[in-house]
């Protein structure tokens, strides 16, 4: 692990926030549904789904393909709007936000890692990490980007273009980019899906470790049971409905959220 990692101890405000906030849930979904027009028929991908994720929790969303996992992630990231229902991020209702406001929100609070890496081909590894920092207009962007690059063990690859990097390296750059603005929420959509198991394991370890030290809320979409087993909580989807929602209990669990508590928090 690179020495550039910011330990949680240096960031006491994160821990304090949990107590001071009106709600200690980072992500709240109320009766969200998503319907799309597919040819002549309407296809419902999510059925009035409710979910609350407390700050700092590591949630794995599992389910067969077509169960609505990625759609759910897209709605949380504000990449798409639900057909009905409300999405709250850090107690802020994003359902009616405009495109641009959502982009700004993502820049401040949300980091995303995609299955297909999605690096910008015309930028070097370093520049890809720099992009979100520059968009926000952060000071000392270059130093921070270099540090993040060191965190993912790619210092010597700084000036390589994505096409010159292996898949594993590309995904590590993507992970570093997702952490660039110190997001409160990290969303990962099958981050190891396009990698072989060795590289996949390495990327996943890096991501989880970096997140553990920062204490961000992590939502991981996967169908890899082994990866899901390392989460605090596992939500299983099938045909757009939650079929199981279980707390895993384990060393990395930050909060012990019980079903009753979740129930009580509903309006």
């Amino acid at each position: 692990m690179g020495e550039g990692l910011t330990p949680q101890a240096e960031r006491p405000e994160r821990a304090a926030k949990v107590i001071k906030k009106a709600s200690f849930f980072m992500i709240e979904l109320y009766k969200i549904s998503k319907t799309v027009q597919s040819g002549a028929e309407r296809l419902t991908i999510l059925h009035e789904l409710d979910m609350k994720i407390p700050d700092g929790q590591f949630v794995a969303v599992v389910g067969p393909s077509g169960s609505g996992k990625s759609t759910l992630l897209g709605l949380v990231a504000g990449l798409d709007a639900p057909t009905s229902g409300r999405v709250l991020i850090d107690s802020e209702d994003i359902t009616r936000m405009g495109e641009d406001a959502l982009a700004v929100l993502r820049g401040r609070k949300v980091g995303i890692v995609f299955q297909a890496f999605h690096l910008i081909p015309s930028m070097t590894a370093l520049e890809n990490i720099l992009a979100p920092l520059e968009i926000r207009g952060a000071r000392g962007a270059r130093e921070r980007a270099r540090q993040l690059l060191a965190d993912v063990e790619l210092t010597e690859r700084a000036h390589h273009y994505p096409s010159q990097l292996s898949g594993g390296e590309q995904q590590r750059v993507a992970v570093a980019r997702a952490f660039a603005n110190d997001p409160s929420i990290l969303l990962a959509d099958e981050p190891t899906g396009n990698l072989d198991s060795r590289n996949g394991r390495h990327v996943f370890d890096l991501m989880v470790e970096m997140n553990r030290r920062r204490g961000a809320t992590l939502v991981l979409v996967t169908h890899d049971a082994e990866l899901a087993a390392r989460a605090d909580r596992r939500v299983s989807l099938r045909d757009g409905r939650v079929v199981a929602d279980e707390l895993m209990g384990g060393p990395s669990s930050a909060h012990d959220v019980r079903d009753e508590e979740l129930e009580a928090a509903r309006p």
Partner: protein
Amino acid sequence: MNFIIQLAWRELRSSWRRLLFFFVCIGVGVGSVVALRSMIQNLNRAVAGEARALMTADAQVETTREWDAEALAKIERVARPPLVLARAETVEAPTMLRPADESKEGALMVELKGIEKPFPLYGEFRLADGRAFDYSLVESDGAVVAPLLLERLALKVGDRVKIGEKVFEIRGVTRDEPGSGGGFRLGPRVFVERKSLEAAGLTGFGSRARRKILFKTSEDGAGELVRRLRAELGNNIYGVRSYKDSQESLGEQFARAENYLSLTGLVVLVLGGIGVSSVTRVFVEQRKKSIAILKCVGATGSRLTAAYLAQVILLGVAGSLLGVLLARAALLFVQSRFAESLPRNLSYDLQAGAAAQGLGLGLLISVLFAALPLLRVGRIKPNMLLRESEDAARGFRFDPLRWGVAVCVLAGVAFLASWQAGSVRVGLFFLGGLGVAAGLLYAAAWALVFLLKRARAFGPFTVRQAVNSMHRPGNQTRVILLAVGLGAFLVIAVQSLQANLLEEIDVTRRGSLPSMYLIDVQKDQVEGVRELVAGETGLTAELLPTVRARIVKVNGRDIDLDAVEMRRERGRLGREYVTTYRPRLEANETVVAGEFWDETPSAEAEVSIEEALRGTAGLDVGGTITFDIQGRKITARVTSVRRVDWRNSRTGFLVLFRPGALDNAPQTFVGALDGLTDVTRRARFERALVDRFPNVSVIDVADIVQSVGRILSNITLAVSFIGGFVLLSGTLILVGSIAMTKFQRIYEAAVLKTLGASRRTLLGILLAEYALLGLVAGLVGAAAATGLSYAVSRYVFEIDWSFMPGIGLAGIFLTVLLVCLVGALSSLDVLTRKPLAILRSG
């Protein structure tokens, strides 16, 4: 801001080569605007700046009459020191010259100029051997002649020539002649002493001599002199002008020429704009994913749009700068190729104003044409990163922003066109014309794609595949058709117009133009000339009387050319009219109003005017015109209005008198001779005629047609040059459009190769596609060009128009060839790439 610049920089770094290629189109357009404007501005400076040298004076009084004592006395009263420092009188007359040596053949019409000391008051007068002109060369019957005369009559310095009955000795050959504007001339210039010219008896009764008194004035005295002379002389019979007047009118003409020419440059620029629009669209399409990613990490649509706009601006500026360099190169080319036929003091520098205008135009066109495709940046949904294939069905949806921007773009282009034309009306017409042409091509492209969709099941495999490629998603069919079609349209239109003009003036094919005109035949020479013509050539010459007249009153009112309401009609009222009298209408005349006289002569003056004069100063049937004929005033009643079919005429008269009133007025006769085509017979006849009637002039129509043809071919060259620019930018767009869709082609080709297609088959598919595109572009271009050449021939030049399928077919063929060639060359790697690597990465 920082992010916008950073992003623009990073994007450009990786793809500037491909993008700049398109902005070369802008460069070509900017180059043609800057080059044309600089050239005309330089010409204006060289010519109008030399207005004093052209007039060879500060001010002049000009008349086609002999000076009468009264007028001379008036001039004497005004033109004296300190206002006037020097003066010189000149006489110019077109007349016939022949070698004094009886054994030499031939006679030639020359532009004779009689001068006196201290001519020239301004301007350089230099001889071929480098010496400055010396007045002693013309004293006591000497002549200084233009080189062309020696060439045409095989004479040399020291030979003697006859003008009228007087003999002159050639003592020098001119190199730089003062007051030569390079305008159209009936023959080479010959300088003699004014006294000798008067003595030759050529400037007498009814001759077409033009007399001038040139003045050198004190500093800034020219305006004052002109004002006072006008007040003394009135301004109908004596033309008074200062060099500043001609400077102004030249300046106006040049400004108009400059504006019209830069409109053609704008056509090239607009084509470039179409290229830019297409590249921006494809570029944004290709960057869709990067844009979505940036939106995921927090960039807003407006900032991203700004970043891409910054790129367009950067490339637009780069392209425009390239255009300025191109313009410089073009001017150097003109200098090396045409310097001989252009004024000696012409500069070939770029004009800063023109360059600035070019840069502004290039930038504005880039931004205007990129605006619509750039709107898409804001519309790209970041969600596409999660669901690759989810491309929402894009139906027609009313989008106020898009329409608003479209209206702004249109208004912007209209503004640019009006700015360049210097007139809103012309600018809008230009835009309309361009719109119609583009609309036609676009409709043709649409129809083609529509038909092809239905026709794709027919024909061999290669053709079916070619047809498929033309309506593949993201195809460039419309853009290619538009660019190449417009280029073909302009080039074919220019060619067919030129062909029609050349045919019009080709005497050998058109019977109505005679081969020769005889002018200045005196009344008592008519019978003699008839006999001589019959004896020498066996032809009959029909001689018409002509009377020169100026209009001094209309409906009893004096003509005051300075009055505001007369200003616009100055050209029609101030000129001298050549009139005739005859009892009947010609075959090419029809009466449109009033009644034509019967065949009996009438002592009371009656005229029939041509339609063109009707309405001038309120002139119509029943009105009166007072003419001044060599000082005698005659008031005539307008009894009819005629229409003359100028295209079928050898002579046409705007004013026609009823026989009777003018029978004894000062008059000369003109005649036309047909069918004298043989060169040696013609020379012998001219010699015989001039020997016997030295005052009679012969205008050789073949000579004139030749020099008009030369001027015409120079104009054609210039216009074809611009057409070439248009074609060039069309080709650039073609190459670029092909490059833009190449990645699709390469993928398709790879798949086809795995299915067993040979490279030969793939080449066949490519060629079939481009041949089809070229064919449609050529067809539409040729059809539009035919329409344009018809309209311009009939309504602008007023000449007969004939359909020339050869030019259109050649144009279509060359378009197909060009498109196939360019298409095949820019797609070579589609054929050569190995399929496996492509399929893996695809």
